[in-house]
Structures are given as C-alpha cells and as structure tokens.
C-alpha cells in the first residue's frame, strides 16, 4: 500500500509506556510492536495491564511518559486521526439494548462519517457478514450474548478500520458463540487485511487464533513470539506463562469478577 521507500509503519508501536493509578503501576515500561496484518494477542491474567494498554492505544488515556503510534500516527498528537483508523470493541457488552441491531450499527457509521450514499449499504453489508441480517431489525435486548458480540463487531467494522482492537472479546460466551466470534474476525481479516489486536486471558484461544502473542504480567511483556515458538520445549501456554512469571493465572481482584459478571448478566 505504502508508496514511500521506507518500510511501512507498524500497526502499533509502543515505546517506554508507563501508567500508574495512584500507587498502583498498571503498565511499567512497555515496548511493543504489532506488525500490519497480523492477529496479535495481548495475553495475561486480570490486572496484568492489558486493558490499560488498550485504553492508551485507543486514545482514552494519556500516553506520557513514552509514546505510542498507530500506523504512523502519534496517539498523543493526532487523536482524531488515530481514531479514524480504529475499530474498538470494549470488554463490556456495550451495544444499546433499546436500539435495533441496524440502528446500533448505523449510529457508528454516522459517527465515523461513512458517506451518506453508501451508509445504508455498508450497514447491511457488515450485518450480513456478522450473520445478523435476520435479527437486524429486532431490539438488541432480544439478542443472545454471542449475537451482541457479533453486533459490536459489526459496529466496529462498519468504518472499515485498519486496526481492530478487541478487549476480551469472548469473555462470558459459551464455546459455540466464542467460535462464532473468532470465525467472523478471521473472515473479515482475510478479506480486508486489517490488523487485529486482541487481549485475552484464555490461553487456548490465544494459541488457536493469534499469529503472535505477548505475555503480559504486572505491566510488562515477559515473553513474545508465535504460539509455537513460545511453547517450544515448555508445554502448553499455561506452562509458558508459569515459566516466565513463576505465577499462576489465578489473579485479579473483586472488581474484575464483578465487572465480568455484570457483563455476563446484562442483556442476557
């Protein structure tokens, strides 16, 4: 795509990123490079700093000290420019329950300035891609958890983002719905070549669906590579994690549990 002679800018580049909330350091000197077109997994237990990292990449939190660029755009200096490139699905179920699926998607088409003449078509297209055509004119409150997630993917994809950012996309979903979500992500990526940055604490999902993985623990990347390379000679990704951190995955305070349950409980 790039016409310049320099190698294309990576999809995401984090340099020395740090973030503390009060006395707690959430991200502690993070360096990260996500290449264009890959599915990159940010893996770690609750409280590892994944969501904070995502919130900095998506312009929701200031990035100083350190710097983050998304496809060459500085997140601190060109927020609006960065947001134009992004599709974002937060951890919670965030579709509007009182609106229909189509209205939910059309809202984001408008907020991303999808031109009026192609808007209707584009909305129908992403709804179809997420297998929601039949349910499109029903209120989202009648949707199952898996359908809501696919609706949120449709919302994020209607602007044809170059970087899709998913925060724990399959949390609270049953295995069938989970596969449904991943299949759609894979299909869209194959079609558009977009980059996917996903956080998860589900080792097996990361293993199956990510091209490369960064293991995060206590605000830092402890290991980085393809799932195969990481597992080489160690065992499962769970073992890899234990190997690099000396810790189990069982972590995270009551607030994480509460938010995960709230997520699972709403719209259900």
């Amino acid at each position, binding site marked *: 795509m790039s016409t310049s002679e320099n190698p294309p800018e990576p999809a995401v580049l984090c340099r020395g990123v740090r973030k503390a909330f009060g006395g707690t350091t959430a991200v502690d000197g993070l360096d990260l490079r996500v290449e264009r077109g890959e599915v990159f997994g940010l893996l770690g237990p609750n409280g590892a700093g994944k969501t904070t990292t995502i919130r900095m990449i998506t312009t929701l939190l200031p990035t100083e000290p350190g710097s983050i660029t998304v496809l060459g755009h500085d997140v601190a200096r060109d927020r609006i420019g960065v*947001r134009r490139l992004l599709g974002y699905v937060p951890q919670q179920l965030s579709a509007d329950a009182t609106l229909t699926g189509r209205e939910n998607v059309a809202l984001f088409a408008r907020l991303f300035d999808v031109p009026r003449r192609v808007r209707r078509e584009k909305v129908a297209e992403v709804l179809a891609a997420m297998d929601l055509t039949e349910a499109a004119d029903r209120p989202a409150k009648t949707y199952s958890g898996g359908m809501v997630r696919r609706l949120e993917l449709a919302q994020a994809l209607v602007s044809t983002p170059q970087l899709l950012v998913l925060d724990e996309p399959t949390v609270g979903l049953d295995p069938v719905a989970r596969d449904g979500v991943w299949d759609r992500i894979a299909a869209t990526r194959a079609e558009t070549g977009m980059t996917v940055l996903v956080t998860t604490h589900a080792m097996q999902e990361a293993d199956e669906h990510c091209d490369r993985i960064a293991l995060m623990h206590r605000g830092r990347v402890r290991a980085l590579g393809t799932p195969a390379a990481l597992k080489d000679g160690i065992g499962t990704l769970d073992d890899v994690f234990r190997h690099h951190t000396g810790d189990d995955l069982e972590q995270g305070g009551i607030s994480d549990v509460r938010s995960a349950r709230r997520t699972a409980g709403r719209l259900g």
Partner: protein
Amino acid sequence: MSAALAAPQAGWAESWWAPVRVFLSRIATMCLVELQKLRHDRTELVTRAVQPALWLLVFGNVFTAIHAIPTGNVPYLDFLAPGILAQSALFIAIFYGIQIIWERDAGVLSKLLVTPTPRVAMVAAKAFAAGIRAVAQAVVVLALALVLGVSLTANPLKWLGVVAALMLGSAIFCCLSIAIAGLVLSRDRLMGIGQAITMPLFFASNALYPVALMPTWLQWVNHVNPLSYEVEALRGLMIGEPARLGLCFAVLLGAAALMISLASAVLPRLTR
C-alpha cells in the same frame, strides 16, 4: 494538512467548516438516536408525564381555586404551565447526565469516545439529545395543559422559540449533571446530588410564583438561575406574558456554551 498548504484559500474555508460540520453532524446523530430510542420505548414518555401532570392537576388547580398566588390577569394554571414544562425538562436533563455514569460502566462511553469526534462535540451532542427527550416530553405535558383549558399561543414561530428554549435549558442541566458525574464518578452519589440540586433550582426560580413575591435573597438566587430565564422565555412565548426574550436567550446560549465546555473538560475523568 498538506492539501491546505497547496490551496490556502480552499484550505482556509475547509479549516473552519470541517469542525463545524463534525460538530453539527454529531449533534444530529445523537438526536436521531434519541428519537429512535423514544420510538422503541413510548411508555417512558407516559410514566415520566405523571409527575408534571400531578403538578398541573393538583397543585395548579388547588392554587388557582384558593387564589393563593397573585398572577395579575393571568389564571394561575396558565402561569404555572410553562414553569412545569421547564421543570419536567430539568428533571429529564439531570437524569440524562446521570445516565452517563451507566454508559461509562457499560463501556458505551469509551466506544463513543474512540470515534473521530472531539469531546466537546460529543458532550454537545449528548446535551441536545437530552433536549430532544425534553421536547418529546413537553408535547405530552402541553396536551394535558390544553385539556385543562390553558390558553396557549397558536403562533408557530413562538412554538419554534419554545423548542429552542427547552433544548437550551436541557443542554445546560444535562451538562451540569455530566460535570458533576465527572467529579463524583459514582451513580449513587450522583443520584443524591441530582436530587439535592433539582429541587432548589426549581424552587429558587420563577416556575411556581412571580419573582416579585420572593424574599430579596431568593430574588438574587433567581437572577443567576438559568431555569428562571428558561421559564421567563417559555412564559413569554406560550402565554404572552411580558418577557425579556433577548436577554433570556442570550443567558441560555451563554450558559449552554459555558456548561458544554465545563462538561467536556471533566469528561476525560470518566474514561480513566
């Protein structure tokens, strides 16, 4: 940016029009969403109308009957109707701002803020969406007022003014509650504060009684209460009471601009 350098004149026009266009487009978008929500949940319009209906039916009729509040040649019920309209808009707007905490907890707010929308445009869009809801509510209250025999203007231009006053008033109070939401960051506390400020705003205004009846200190509060200017404008437009319409709209516009900037300054706290 490079296009602006190549064609400075077109670039100049573009540079001021582009943000204005985004601003107006976001307001239109959020207002449209509000109308869609109203269409899906009409019962809320009715349940929310219960309180203003009681004010008109019970309070209005009783105080008209006992002639407790002197309002000159105007029947008290006519005098009260614009006040109750403003009050119902106030309650809706304050509640709308409270909802932003729910949106924050549900991740909706983050998602809205990761769209190419400047914060001030998003706040303004939310504020005027609250106005749409208030106007829809006002239609229900007005229908009731007509049934009760309140004589209202038939001039469509004046009704446009009524819509404008309600939209601006709602925007002000919606932003006030967003600003408070950004400071307290908790729904329970905000509910308490919301209730603690709505009644004083209402009672320290000219919604229920003429300013002349107020003790001096309350008159002073009344002078800085945007609700009073909203009520004065509504009263002037709806029932033809003498009103300083220019001053009222200037105050409402100024207060709306101030509150929108205040709420957008506080908004980032809600996404941390």
